[in-house]
């Protein structure tokens, strides 16, 4: 019998947060700890028996707990410019004040940053390295800016180097079969997640649930529990009523607003139904290849934000078409310059909003209302 999604979800959360300071009661983690960026090849870390934590995701949790403002202020007092990515400002404030909704993540033994979503994260990881005085490994993913063969050689050398360095850190022996197994788990998580995410187009479901459920794909994608969770969710979502066709289908193009109770601007979208989102596909990584290193290269070198403008546009256009959206809320995120251009060449009616995914004070509600009203008017006249 399939366990309920809620039960599976709480097991995963308990597991993930057990060494955060609020719950650990002084107990030190029983494995080596890495802090990683959201597109780190964690299958390697899992294979070498490590714990890994995601500062970006924790910043989102902080904002969802309505606590980000004091942390943003604190990091600014510590000379981190408010112009920097709010994930980093929020988390730096949390570390500086030594408080957070679930306490502080366990101290890292190593920091691993990748540049397959942006170049900001490796910079942020540099300041974490100064704070904790631990080694920093930056994995450089050229994306589509380099010839595929050269990029594969370079990325694979780095993956192999990472393995050696983590073997030395953990004292554990690397097992290629276990890596293959972990990659297979991630592949299955992606498979079931894609089925869950499609519910947004077809079923009567608010995006809040989808935006929140993706966190397991981000933080625990090679965990068997994540596969089970998404299987259970898929079964539950099959039972939901079909989407209300009287509402205007709209595509959410950008980050969820983590600080918002609903994660999207529900107060302005009464007449709309969010039928698709590109953010929820960012971790639908493509692990194709004939061996473990090819699979990791394919998944992590070609993340959405590491694609050329042309391929981003093609992918987005297809997603919007598949979602049957008439229009979009397009978010220009102050904290994510790389995503700023994603919708540049998308040709549907859009309400373009300047937002920040963490800082609730950044959004002008009055201006937002006007832009969404204008979008409605545009649709009515078409």
């Amino acid at each position, binding site marked *: 019998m399939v366990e309920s999604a809620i039960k599976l979800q709480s097991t995963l959360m308990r597991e993930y947060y057990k060494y955060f300071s609020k719950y650990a009661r002084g107990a030190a983690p029983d494995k080596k700890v890495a802090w990683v960026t959201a597109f780190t090849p964690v299958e390697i870390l899992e294979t070498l028996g490590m714990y890994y934590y995601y500062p970006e995701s924790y910043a989102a949790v902080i904002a969802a707990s309505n606590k980000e403002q004091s942390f943003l202020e604190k990091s600014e007092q510590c000379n981190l410019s408010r112009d920097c990515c709010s994930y980093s400002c929020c988390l730096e404030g949390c570390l500086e004040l030594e408080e957070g909704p679930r306490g502080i993540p366990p101290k890292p033994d190593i920091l691993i940053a990748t540049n397959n979503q942006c*170049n900001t994260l490796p910079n942020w990881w540099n300041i974490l390295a100064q704070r904790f005085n631990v080694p920093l490994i930056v994995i450089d993913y050229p994306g589509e800016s380099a010839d595929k063969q*050269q990029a594969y050689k370079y990325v694979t*050398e780095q993956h192999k180097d990472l393995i050696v360095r983590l073997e030395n850190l953990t004292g554990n022996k690397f097992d290629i079969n276990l890596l293959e197994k972990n990659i297979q788990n991630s592949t299955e998580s992606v498979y079931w997640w894609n089925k869950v995410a499609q519910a947004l187009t077809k079923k009567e479901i608010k995006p809040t649930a989808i935006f929140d459920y993706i966190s397991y794909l981000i933080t625990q994608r090679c965990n068997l529990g994540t596969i089970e969770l998404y299987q259970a969710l898929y079964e539950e979502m099959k039972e939901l009523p079909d989407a209300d066709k009287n509402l205007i289908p709209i595509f959410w193009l950008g980050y969820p607003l983590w600080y918002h109770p609903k994660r999207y601007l529900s107060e302005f979208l009464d007449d709309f139904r969010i039928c698709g989102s590109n953010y929820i596909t960012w971790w639908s990584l493509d692990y194709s290849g004939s061996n473990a290193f090819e699979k990791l290269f394919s998944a992590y070198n070609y993340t959405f934000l590491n694609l050329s403008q042309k391929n981003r546009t093609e992918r987005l256009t297809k997603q919007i078409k598949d979602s049957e959206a008439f229009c979009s809320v397009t978010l220009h995120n102050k904290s994510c310059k790389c995503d*700023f251009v994603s919708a540049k060449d998308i040709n549907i009616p859009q309400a373009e909003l*300047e937002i920040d995914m963490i800082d609730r004070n950044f959004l002008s509600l009055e201006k937002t209302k006007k832009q969404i009203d204008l979008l409605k008017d545009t649709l009515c006249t078409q």
Partner: protein
Amino acid sequence: MNILSLSGFIPEQICDTVRFTGYSGNISISHYCQYASDYISQVLYDNSVDGAVFPKSCDSTRIIKSYLGETDKFVYQLPVPARIDEYAIDYFANQIKSYKQAIEAHYGFEITDIADRIETINRRNKELKMLYENLEMISYYDYLQGIHKMLTKPLMEQSTPQVKEKKSDGKRVFLIGSFLTSENVLNVIENSGFKVVGDNLPESGRLANRKPCEIAGDIYINIAKNILSSRLSPTQNNFSEIIKDDINEIKSKKAQGVIFLTQKYCEAYDYLYSVYEKKLNSEGIKSIKISLTNSEGSKKFELALEAFADMI
């Protein structure tokens, strides 16, 4: 051929490019480095420019191509490694080779003078180093203005700036930052009673301190090693090394303070500053951060500099 280049990561050894030194453009993108926006403006709207080469090294440069997509000019993004080791050097060498091939294919000629250019660059940098070591005796404004003029010329026409002697007993400061397009800022600094005794700007301290590039062996590996192993940029993700090298120089030059000159929305330097400032504090060295809003400069910081002069 008139290719506009952005950043010291673009290998001058391959062919002549005109270094971007500032432009009053119409393009302004919210939360985006104005220096990069001005570069985009010049590539798009300056008819004398027929090509653009820029790195993939920070978030702003990363998406330049998205804004240049529709131009029919030669547009090339050079991927610069975000780390420094043998794999990165080997990879960067291959990227430099691809860059050379792309230029040959677009402009229809064969590049055959790389070794000669390396020798010329080595000689020029050696002369720059001598000038840099003599900053005590000259006007920093004249010096940097001279370098900027020099970098806009073809390599074989470049000559080391001739800078008149100008002694000063101003307060000794060290400058940190990215390429400084706002030359008038330097006038303000000197007129506020400061004497710039050193810097880590890409076009000055970092260029002058670059070791000679070797010719024997794999020439692309040599160029890659030469560019990646010189004084580091924060985009190369080794803040510890940058801070260590700079503080050694700051101390050896007996600088009383440090002026951070950054472009607004240049995150690499914003992150660097947040840890650099703590380190300087622990060493008892005062610092000030000036955030410039566009590549042509701003007068807003004059008062801040006056206060800083009083402080040190």
